[in-house]
């Protein structure tokens, strides 16, 4: 029995190792090439480590940061990601609180609607969306979060509601008896208990919004506002010349914030924050 188990473990370790190599290899490739000189970046030598003659130092990184619009795009990306994720976390957690705690036709209907929105592919609605966004003037980096809220709400509400069900109701009742209004109960009791789910949802949504290319391209005025993924696209297309070096450096730079967010958040994703609240 035990032997069997360790055999299964070995197989799993192998499969996961292969999978992680597959996942890592594009990133590693880009990392290598971002340190090579422009002329050394070619299909044939993509996997070679930079050598003494091809090593370009951090030249591409400097170019990337100095390139026109990089800092601006970084700012837009941060603005959009922070506002969108913030809105999603706040509104969706409140909404799922209502859905789980108030039983009835409305909350059931809402829940179904959110679940359904997850299965509708973005491509199906993107053209009508971009038009509606234009009409409503939701095409600025500072209000595009309303659109992200709509698209992110399904998953977030689903995850929050799932966790919310496991929070004992008595804790909220106790807070009401202690004199909390519903809003106070939410902010002082429910939200702190939701922290691990907040972190998980936050990371997922942040990765999606930060990396999203299609939605901002469709909605934002491309001449005025570019997010980082749009800017990377631009690197390749300018002057008819492919500036691979700075582009790869740029990609590496834009991965950093999301990795940091993940590493910071990871340790907060602990199970059972409600531990100790009730008997048993």
């Amino acid at each position, binding site marked *: 029995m035990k032997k069997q188990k360790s055999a299964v473990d070995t197989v799993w370790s192998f499969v996961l190792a292969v999978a992680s190599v597959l996942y890592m290899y594009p990133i590693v490739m880009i990392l290598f090439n971002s340190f090579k000189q422009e002329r050394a970046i070619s299909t044939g030598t993509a996997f070679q480590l930079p050598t003494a003659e091809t090593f370009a130092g951090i030249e591409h990184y400097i170019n990337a940061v100095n390139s026109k619009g990089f800092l601006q795009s970084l700012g837009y990306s941060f603005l959009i990601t922070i506002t969108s994720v913030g809105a999603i976390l706040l509104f969706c957690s409140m909404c799922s609180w209502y859905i789980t705690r108030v039983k009835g036709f409305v909350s059931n209907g809402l829940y179904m609607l959110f679940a359904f929105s997850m299965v509708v592919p973005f491509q199906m609605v993107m053209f009508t969306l971009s038009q509606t966004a234009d009409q409503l003037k939701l095409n600025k980096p500072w209000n595009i979060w309303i659109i992200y809220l709509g698209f992110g709400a399904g998953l977030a509400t689903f995850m929050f509601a799932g966790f919310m069900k496991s929070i004992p109701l*008595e804790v909220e009742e106790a807070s009401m*008896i202690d004199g909390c209004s519903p809003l106070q109960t939410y902010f002082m009791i429910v939200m702190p208990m939701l922290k691990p789910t907040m972190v998980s949802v936050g990371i997922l949504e942040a990765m999606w919004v930060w990396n999203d290319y299609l939605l901002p391209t469709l909605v934002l005025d491309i001449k005025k506002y570019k997010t980082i993924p749009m800017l990377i696209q631009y690197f390749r297309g300018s002057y008819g010349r492919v500036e691979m070096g700075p582009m790869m450096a740029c990609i590496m730079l834009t991965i950093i914030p999301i990795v940091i967010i993940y590493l910071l958040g990871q340790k907060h994703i602990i199970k059972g924050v409600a531990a100790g609240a009730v008997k048993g």
Partner: protein
Amino acid sequence: MASISFKNVRKTYDNGVEVVKGFHLDVADKEFIVLVGASGCGKSTTLRMIAGLEDITSGELWIGDKLVNNIPPKDRDIAMVFQSYALYPHMTVYDNMAFALKLAGESKAVIDEKVKEAAEILGLTPYLDRKPKALSGGQRQRVALGRAMVRKPAVFLLDEPLSNLDAKLRTEMRSQLAHLHKKLETTFVYVTHDQTEAMTLGTRIVVMNAGIIQQVDTPRNLYTKPVNKFVAGFIGSPTMNFSNALVAEKEDGLYLEFEGHSVKLNAEKTKALKDGGYVGKEVIFGIRPEDVYEDEDVVKAGLEEKRVIEAEVDMYELLGSDVILYYYVGENKFTAIVNPATPTRTGDTTHFAFDVDRMHIFDKDTEVTICH
């Protein structure tokens, strides 16, 4: 400071089960009322209705001179200890206890004083900085108690607040609660399964069965004058002994005949049974184990020869200050609390006598008390 009054209150849950059925109860201001009853009889539900956590299906609930049917919990001026504790898991013990005071806008100094005082009483001082998950069950329960104790509400609701404590701590907390009641002079509604708690703390006890109030009375009256067989069986430990018996009339008075035994009734009981028209009919009689005497004690107690029952002891149980003997009267398992010096052991045959004056007699069909 408030009275509580239930006027025909009913509670039906969404699944259609009627859990509280036509509750009439007036709790006076400053009273310590204790709810007892078997598990699932609706005690917590009643408490939750007072708290406003559960809608009232029909009827009226008054706290003081306010009809509270539609008033949210936070405006009812109550404190509650939950059966499941319901601590705030993300707050320390100190913050758990201070939470209500903070919301009420008390000054830091006042909060600190009250919380520390409560922690001292509850023996929680070393744990003030811990989160609930790092506490034992009994410690958590004391935090739940402390959260209510620091406040000065109009009504205290306590749902089995001492159930998870060890015997010593429980006795200590019991007297602390009695103190608290005296000091705060507010109304307490207290749910418990513990007879001692009910008897010692309650100014009055409410005995419930399946959502219906059986009797509301002082602890003494519940013990000596139960209104029906349920209450008689519920109050007292070990529980009262019951057996069916025939009321037979002989030339020198009325006798209860059961399982080949026959005991003569006193004048008072004879009159009650005659007035009720029970002569020649079956009734149920009940006798508390403490009113059953063994062998030489029978003589000491001056009980007549005729009232003696012979039985084999099925089990001998030493409880320290008392001995409980188990024996059979016909099919019914009976108990007797006897002198711990008794030489009788399991398997011995001995004599028991019932103190007929303290016998309870119930109608066989309705189980209502005929006489005490």
